[in-house]
């Protein structure tokens, strides 16, 4: 939990500091639930008003527009830019449950931040 939370907090700072990403997510008000393999590795991230507003533990039955499932290690790599999310997705190690548009939007954030 602690490692994933620390990773997502850094991600939140990075997103909110990046003008291009803020432009990309303006109007994209979504809740992203990130579920790792640890018993408490489930966090909800709220994108709203062009910023990452909120980071909190996710409920067991939390509903969200975007849900990510993976081993906690993979999630940490993805949210720190070490791993390419598209590659992890195509390898089947990162599961993404969202509409096509939301999936591309999420990957585009990674693309701008780290590529």
């Amino acid at each position, binding site marked *: 939990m602690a490692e994933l939370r620390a990773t997502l907090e850094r991600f939140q700072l990075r997103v909110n500091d990046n003008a291009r990403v803020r432009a990309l997510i303006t109007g994209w008000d979504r809740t992203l639930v990130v579920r790792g393999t640890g018993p408490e590795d489930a966090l909800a991230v709220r994108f709203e008003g062009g910023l990452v507003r909120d980071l909190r533990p996710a409920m067991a039955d939390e509903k969200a527009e975007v849900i990510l499932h993976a081993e906690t290690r993979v999630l940490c*790599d993805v949210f720190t830019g070490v791993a390419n999310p598209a590659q992890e997705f195509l390898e089947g190690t990162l*599961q993404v*449950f969202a509409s096509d*548009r939301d999936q591309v*939007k999420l990957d585009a954030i990674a693309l701008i931040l780290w590529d």
Partner: protein
Amino acid sequence: MRMSSAASRSEFVEHVATAVGMALACSGYAMLGESQRLLSGGWLLGAVLAAGLSCIVLSFSVGELAAMFPSAPGIRTYLRHAFGDTASLALTLLLFSLVGLFASVEVHYFLAAAREVLPELSEFWTGVAVIVMVCAVNLVGLEAPRRMQVAITALLVLSLVGFSWAALAQSDSASLGRNAPPVPPSLATFVIVSGGCVFLFTGFEWVTSMGRSPESYRARIPVAMPVSLCVLLVVIGSLAWASDGLRSEARYALMPHLALGARVGGPLGVQCMVMASLASMITTFNAGLMGASRLLYAVSRERRFFEWGARVSARRGTPYGAVFSLSGLALMAHALTHALHAHGTVELVCAAIYCLVYSAFLVATVRLRQLRPGSPRVFRSPIPAWVQLLVAALFALMSCAVLATDIRLVSASVSVFMAAVVGSALLARYFVQRAPSPRAALRPQSS
């Protein structure tokens, strides 16, 4: 994280509707018309049944693969784990060529139907306009609500079945199968037509990446696929049976649904079936093209395609590089098939490619059971492995056979098919041999 039973049912219905909508295409009706040239009556129904049952066996295997890799784009992920990067990429690139070719024939057969109502429509320019419009919709990032897909598909199914049964009620049973087939139905002809009929069911597997949660892969998606195929069997079987006696109407040779419309409702019936053609094209393009462009975008992001495929709009977040690539391919295919009058050839090539890909899915299921026996599978195909391999061999056979559907087009069909296969294989080899992305190179150090 369990969903309520109402939400679960709603998701299941959406998956069934999407799978049915993907399969019911204008080019499918044309393929049925083509099949009716070779077989009629019970033989034709037998070929439809053989194709449908083969696809049902396949759907259980695809369900198992989807359960192993929830949300993943099947062709790239399943086949990579089973056969390696190059083979999987070759088949993925072959699928992209199929999307372009398919879009061109779909637009052609839709316009052939639409010209029954608007005869002054220019096939070339209207086709260009349709492809550009689909491209624009994808660029803007518009996604039709899933409920709309369900509603359109339900109307389409009801209208096709309703017109078919109305036509059957009008005709006496003795008229069914009254047209003697042009050649005696041999086993070879039966296999050829069955291969063509597979094309009538294709596209159902696109739902594997549409699950809302991991729970979707336990039963909803694996069951939605065979259920959608059963619905398709009823729709296509009814259409094939009812339009069988109408083949003498040469005007509608490749549009059996329009022949039914004319028989049941006269000009108004034709107009209804033209609307059904429009609905068929919308449901196919709505679910298919955005999914294909997202897959091309992801493949480009892992440096397995040209870099322009990974370009994304900073404002809208839409993968415009992938959308332009696929739309450009569709426009090129449209221009070429229009100039060469090669729609029949292209349609047969699409059917052959689908059979080949389906064969690979079946072999992949059995192979992954051997390679990864301990991997968690929340759904497992109840079909014995030997049956899956037998059906895989059948699909491979049908892939070759379908190219011989029209004896005048054999050399052209084989040439285009081989060009697509060899071209995809060479491109895959090139992309795999390129240096990995800098971040991919970092990965071993991070773990």
